[in-house]
């Protein structure tokens, strides 16, 4: 893992809304992590914890309040020329949550998919453009006939695959998947996850996979970060996080996921999390510390000693 190349470094990223007003929201409050080339980093947490905001800030849908996002060593944020921005848009793409809202209902599927190609001038002729669209449709398991239809004629899973094809059209290296499966039916989720895994293998993509469904995240991710109220509370390899969660919030989250297994459900013990239980003193610094190789936990010095045991 240490030898892997860092594709993305997020340094002390902050995203506040309504700054200075009484309703100031610290959606993302100083988080730092790296994403290595070719890996899938899962980001989980409950609604309002800032995981989607993190994704959107990384891709510049919001202007970060503070901190930096280094892509291949270059800061993505701050003032940029048009060319620089375009090259970021080229490398970084996003898959959205709601398959019903993420496709323009007035555009044909071929135009939806080709939008990125048109913006970046990737297709020289009309024929080349259509061929690329057909190719992408096939990549995501649809076919040529679908190109001339409108989004509302498709089912949720099909739409989500069209959204993936749109993101792939500009040949990105890094894709942020913002809850790509949570709006889909169970039998369709597996299709989309399998497709994403297949694409990762074929194209060497790197994913930031944002979700609240922990069992799917565990399955697709190499490492997982857990967010709670704008902070990253734990970051560890997927196996390690599930087998050996350190932070009490992670433990509570894991104990709450119902599994499709009646026997274990009957004997399930739930843990609750109350932020007051840490009882941090004013002079303690609470920060992300590495308790074992690759396993980071947000804790104080005292807790750190405890977790290390």
């Amino acid at each position, binding site marked *: 893992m240490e030898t892997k190349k860092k594709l993305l470094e997020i340094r002390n990223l902050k995203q506040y809304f309504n700054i200075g007003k009484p309703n100031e929201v610290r959606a993302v409050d100083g988080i730092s992590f790296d994403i290595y080339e070719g890996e899938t980093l899962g980001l989980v947490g409950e609604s309002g914890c800032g995981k989607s905001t993190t994704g*959107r800030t990384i*891709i*510049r*849908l919001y202007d970060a309040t503070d901190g930096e996002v280094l892509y291949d060593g270059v800061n993505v944020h701050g003032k940029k020329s048009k060319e620089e*921005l*375009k090259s970021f*848009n*080229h490398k*970084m*793409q*996003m898959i*959205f*949550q*709601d398959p019903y*809202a*993420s*496709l*323009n*209902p*007035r*555009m044909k599927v071929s135009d*939806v998919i080709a*939008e*990125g190609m048109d*913006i*970046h001038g990737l297709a020289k002729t009309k024929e080349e453009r259509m061929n690329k669209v057909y190719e992408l449709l096939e990549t995501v*398991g*649809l*076919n040529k*006939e*679908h190109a*001339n*239809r*409108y989004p*509302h*004629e*498709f089912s949720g899973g*099909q739409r989500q695959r069209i*959204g993936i094809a*749109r*993101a792939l059209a*500009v040949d990105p290296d890094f894709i942020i998947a913002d809850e790509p499966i949570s709006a889909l039916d169970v039998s369709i989720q597996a299709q989309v996850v399998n497709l994403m895994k297949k694409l990762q293998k074929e194209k060497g993509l790197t994913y930031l996979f944002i979700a609240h469904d922990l069992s799917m995240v565990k399955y697709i991710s190499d490492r997982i970060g857990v967010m709670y109220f704008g902070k990253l509370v734990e970051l560890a390899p997927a196996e390690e996080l599930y087998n050996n969660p350190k932070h009490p919030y992670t433990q509570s989250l894991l104990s709450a996921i119902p599994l499709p297994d009646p026997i274990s459900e009957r004997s399930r013990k739930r843990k609750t999390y109350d932020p007051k239980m840490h009882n941090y003193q004013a002079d303690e610094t609470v920060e992300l510390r590495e308790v074992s190789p690759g396993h980071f936990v947000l804790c104080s010095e005292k807790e750190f000693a405890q977790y290390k045991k």
Partner: protein
Amino acid sequence: MAQFDEKISKDQFEPAIIDASTSERISKPSLNYWQDAWLRVRKNKGAIVSLVVIGFLIIMALIGPSLSKFDSNKQNTKHANLPPRIEALENISWLPFDGTRTLKNGNVVNPYEQKQIEEYYWFGTDALGRDQFSRVWKGTQISLYIAFLAAFIDMVIGVTFGAVSGYFGGRVDNIMQRIIEVLSGIPNLVIVILMIIVLKPGIISITVALTITGWVSMARVIRAQVLKLKNQEFVLASRTLGASHAKIIFKHLLPNLAGVIIINTMFSIPNAIFFEAFLSFIGLGLQDPLASLGTLIDEGFRAMIAFPYQMLVPAIVISVVMIAFNMIADGLRDALDPKMRD
């Protein structure tokens, strides 16, 4: 529970060949938004009838004045105040087209015979002996022209203003909204009267007077829609692909606003017709010899008791126009409103 009415042959239990490609097939015919909307409008009988009525009225407004032998502005004082008379229909006693009129004392007279007039004035004539038929259609033409022009200008200004205000948000939005508030704070009629006094009464000045405040409601509706649309994921997706503002507005926002724009415009047309008629009626509208439905009603109103037909005909036309436009707009709203889609 398993019961078999008939024997099933064993070969039925061989594996079936399933064509994997069929599982992704969509059986519904491909319909775009407008085709889909048309299917909905077509089911609305009122809207379809209204559409036919409006079509007929527009055609008549265009060719009506030339159907009659008489020019709409030609005065012939000898032929003043004639009641309607139509060839062939004049002999059907219960129709009001026999050229007679009833006096106050109950006597029925026929001015055509009294004055020995051979011509047939289909809708009669006015106090100056002008042919009502051609004047009514000329008036319809001008009323519709003003309404369409005003609605179009409303649309252009309202959509642009609303879209810019909603899309860019923040300070731009703040300033633009204050402008709207100031404009809508001043009573409509005051602005219009001032406008008419400054400009000479005429088609253009009335249109300008109508549009100066008319676009506000369009701008508000569009702004609200843009505020909602600009955070939709397909717009975000376009931004992550690097699309420019112009591209987002023209490719993503406007096509999705089309329905709202059309509905709003369709409602603003009858409003403009009515407002123009109102201005004419209170004497702020078009001046003779120009005729609009409003001025015709105004003139007819002065002679209402003696010659009711002079007011009745334009009043019927304007009512039909208003009702028909409103019904079409209603039908379109049901068809185009995204909330009504299943």
